[in-house]
């Protein structure tokens, strides 16, 4: 089977594009602050996203404190609780996950894995980061203005988002909307860069079907983001006008304390459509890079080629396309024609098919692989569990009749945290453990890593699994306190306390990770250029960490796909992508090809 690949790859095509001119700044500021090097920009993105993500983590702890041990902290009142909910959600989805996957891993891995010197437009890439930083600062400013952040929920539904009574109605909502608009501008600069680099700046021999799945995932997510963020941009502009100019795009005529407002005839449903036309693809913008990265981690650490590479690529493309026609499944309870509900339920459930293909292929890659239980592998396996769990509860919620009673309960919270919060975060951790040696030249500490994994993995189950049961009882989400109700049993409070304890343990376990990052930077074991014996191009750079320009004098030439692990009859159990067929060391007496 493998032989045919080698014969076709004997040919190395000539270079089509001349060498890229790179600015080589000398000083510290040019190299590390106003840097045009994608790798430095990636670290800048990663650190900023982590910093703002920690803020969101603390907010979630404050929420858990209130839910598990009501009224134990006097600063948490109903208004501030709503602000925590809003900021936690928005930061985690947009400013952490989107930014770290596309801005962080995208910037670091796309040029290295494609065999490019840098992104196609380094200057624009730099601008992208600084605009992103500005959007984060505008968002953070919301914590300090009078009235505080907006408490509209991360979906920012009008009319309540800009109506009196919602926290942060004065400045918070304006800052949130401006910050989102700025984020989208910054992201567009970066996103166009990633797309052009993947399409037009690959090295000789790197065909699209020889790209590592990591690049495929990030590429497709970027394309989706470029097409989905416009809807949010439009919604944000319109809501800003509603808030600042008194227009009525989304605002119907309302009575407030017996008096009519200024607004008339707007459509709140229009906002929901625009928001979810962005919001649903956003789920896959976060998930697809995770899919791609986890495919590479599993193949590398199981020493086996990824099962069904072509199907994996097509599944990524199909998931990306389908995710644009499912958005209204977030709006089953908004008042929708049953025919539309049927249509959107159907498209939603169809997405399960390519997703299931991916899950089967990951499992089949593991099957009879030479699995090395390294920390990245542990996180990848953890991802498979949480993702399948969250995906299965998604099948419940995709059906209109099941969704209507479960809508806005903790079942939904449990579902989406499993599938799009924990699962991608586990991949991020795995990816950091995997690529940290390339970024710094040193391995992260293994013992701390394993401790971090087990606490995080088991802890997240302790947090989100019980939420499904709480949700089935009908406990609504986003409530500060439940008050006197007959349908909520007393055990819910006990479960909530347990969840909160688990949440605190998991949160503090992240300190282990942060400590590991800092400690290993100077004290970690020397990694060498290719500690995991991986095949992809980023491990074949002449320097570790790679210098500006990535590949030294000569760009690599690619002769094979990225998954030549455990090829029968070959001495080493991996063949890097840039090793020509005649240079592969074979076992002297091994039969050629055949099934091992």
């Amino acid at each position: 089977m493998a032989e045919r690949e080698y014969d076709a790859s004997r040919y190395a095509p000539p270079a089509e594009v001349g060498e890229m001119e790179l600015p080589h700044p000398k000083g510290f500021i040019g190299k590390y602050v106003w840097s045009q090097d994608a790798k430095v920009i990636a670290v800048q993105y990663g650190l900023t996203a982590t910093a703002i993500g920690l803020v969101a983590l603390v907010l979630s702890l404050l929420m858990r404190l209130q839910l598990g041990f009501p009224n134990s902290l006097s600063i948490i009142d109903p208004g501030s609780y709503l602000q925590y909910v809003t900021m936690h959600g928005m930061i985690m989805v947009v400013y952490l996950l989107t930014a770290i996957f596309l801005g962080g891993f995208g910037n670091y891995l796309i040029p290295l894995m494609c065999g490019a010197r840098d992104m196609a437009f380094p200057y624009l890439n730099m601008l992208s980061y600084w605009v992103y930083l500005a959007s984060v600062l505008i968002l953070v400013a919301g914590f300090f203005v009078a009235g505080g952040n907006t408490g509209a929920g991360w979906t920012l539904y009008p009319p309540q988002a800009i109506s009196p009574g919602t926290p942060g109605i004065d400045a918070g909502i304006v800052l949130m909307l401006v910050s989102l608009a700025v984020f989208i501008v910054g992201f567009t600069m970066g996103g166009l860069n990633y797309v052009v680099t993947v399409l037009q700046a690959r090295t000789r021999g790197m065909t699209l079907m020889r790209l590592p799945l990591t690049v495929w995932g990030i590429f497709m997510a970027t394309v989706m983001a470029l097409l989905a963020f416009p809807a949010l941009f439009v919604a944000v502009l319109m809501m800003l006008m509603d808030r600042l100019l008194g227009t009525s795009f989304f605002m119907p005529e309302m009575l407030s304390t017996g008096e009519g407002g200024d607004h008339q005839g707007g459509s709140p449903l229009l906002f929901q459509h625009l928001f979810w036309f962005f919001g649903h693809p956003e789920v896959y913008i976060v998930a697809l890079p995770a899919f791609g990265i986890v495919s590479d981690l599993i193949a590398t650490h199981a020493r086996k080629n990824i099962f069904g590479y072509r199907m994996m690529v097509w599944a990524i493309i199909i998931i990306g396309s389908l995710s644009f026609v499912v958005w209204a499944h977030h709006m089953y309870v908004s008042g929708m024609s049953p025919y539309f509900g049927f249509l959107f339920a159907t498209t939603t459930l169809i997405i399960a098919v390519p997703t299931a293909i991916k899950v089967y292929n990951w499992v089949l890659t593991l099957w009879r692989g030479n699995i090395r239980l390294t920390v990245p592998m542990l996180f990848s396996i953890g991802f498979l569990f949480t993702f399948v769990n969250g995906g299965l509860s998604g099948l419940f919620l995709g059906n209109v009749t099941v969704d209507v009673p479960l809508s806005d309960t903790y079942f939904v919270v449990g579902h989406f945290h499993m599938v799009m919060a924990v699962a991608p975060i586990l991949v991020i951790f795995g990816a950091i453990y995997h690529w940290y040696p390339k970024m710094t030249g040193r391995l992260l500490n293994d013992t701390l890593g394993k401790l971090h994994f087990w606490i995080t993995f088991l802890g997240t189950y302790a947090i989100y699994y019980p939420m499904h049961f709480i949700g089935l009882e009908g406990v609504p989400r986003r409530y500060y306190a439940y008050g006197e109700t007959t349908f909520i049993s007393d055990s819910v409070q006990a479960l909530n306390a347990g969840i909160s304890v688990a949440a605190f343990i998991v949160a503090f376990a992240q300190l282990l990770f942060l400590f590991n990052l800092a400690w290993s930077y100077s004290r970690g074991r020397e990694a060498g250029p290719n500690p995991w014996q991986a095949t992809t191009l980023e491990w074949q750079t002449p320097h570790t960490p790679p210098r500006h320009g990535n590949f030294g004098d000569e760009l690599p030439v690619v002769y094979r796909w990225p998954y030549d692990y455990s090829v029968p009859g070959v001495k080493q159990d991996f063949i890097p992508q840039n090793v020509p067929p005649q240079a592969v060391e074979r076992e002297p007496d091994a039969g050629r090809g055949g099934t091992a």
Partner: protein
Amino acid sequence: MAKSTLRDPFLEPGLRGMVGDLASDQRAFKEVPWSKAMMWGFLLSDIFIFACFLVGYMAARITATAPWPNASEVFALEVGGHHVPLLLIAIMTFILISSSGTMALAVKCGYERRRLATGGLLILTALLGASFVGMQAFEWTKLIHEGVRPWGNPWGAEQFGATFFLITGFHGTHVSFGVLFLVIMAVKVMRGSLEAQRPGFLTGRRGRYEMVETLGLYWHFVDLVWVFIFAFFYLW
């Protein structure tokens, strides 16, 4: 730039060949410079912005509770005592479409390395664009004098003013930026920066005549979007 690999020995003719070509090494789109590929990507993203605007406008118009103002009266001009509907907007549309023609000529002259002709046509395009923006400003002023505001107007649904100012304003901003870039590009062409491949002011990218074409793509796009805005606001 090195030679094309379009006659790569491994590529097949027909549909399979096209797919193989797209997936082949180094570049999905052969002979397409990076900046042009990026402009297409940007325009695709921008199409989604304008599409969302126009769909939002349709939704707002359909769901508005008050009656929608009559376009042929609102946008009419009084010329010599006669009530002429759509006069101004017809002129504006004509001017903008014509500017697409001058832009296309500028691209052609650019590739023929005719510096003066290219620069002149770019300036002409910029002038046509600027006059479009000027007439738009005139129309805005007229409407504002008649009492149209984003939050209300004398004739009916207040969403009329909101959508009109938002969407034509967003488009007008696109045209204004286009005019700015046209002027910059004209200066570059006239000074011979493109021919000498001098690096740009900020990014340090070397000048090439493809830049004129890339700017042209943007300009044509802005014109095309106007056709849709024109149809949905003035003819509906």
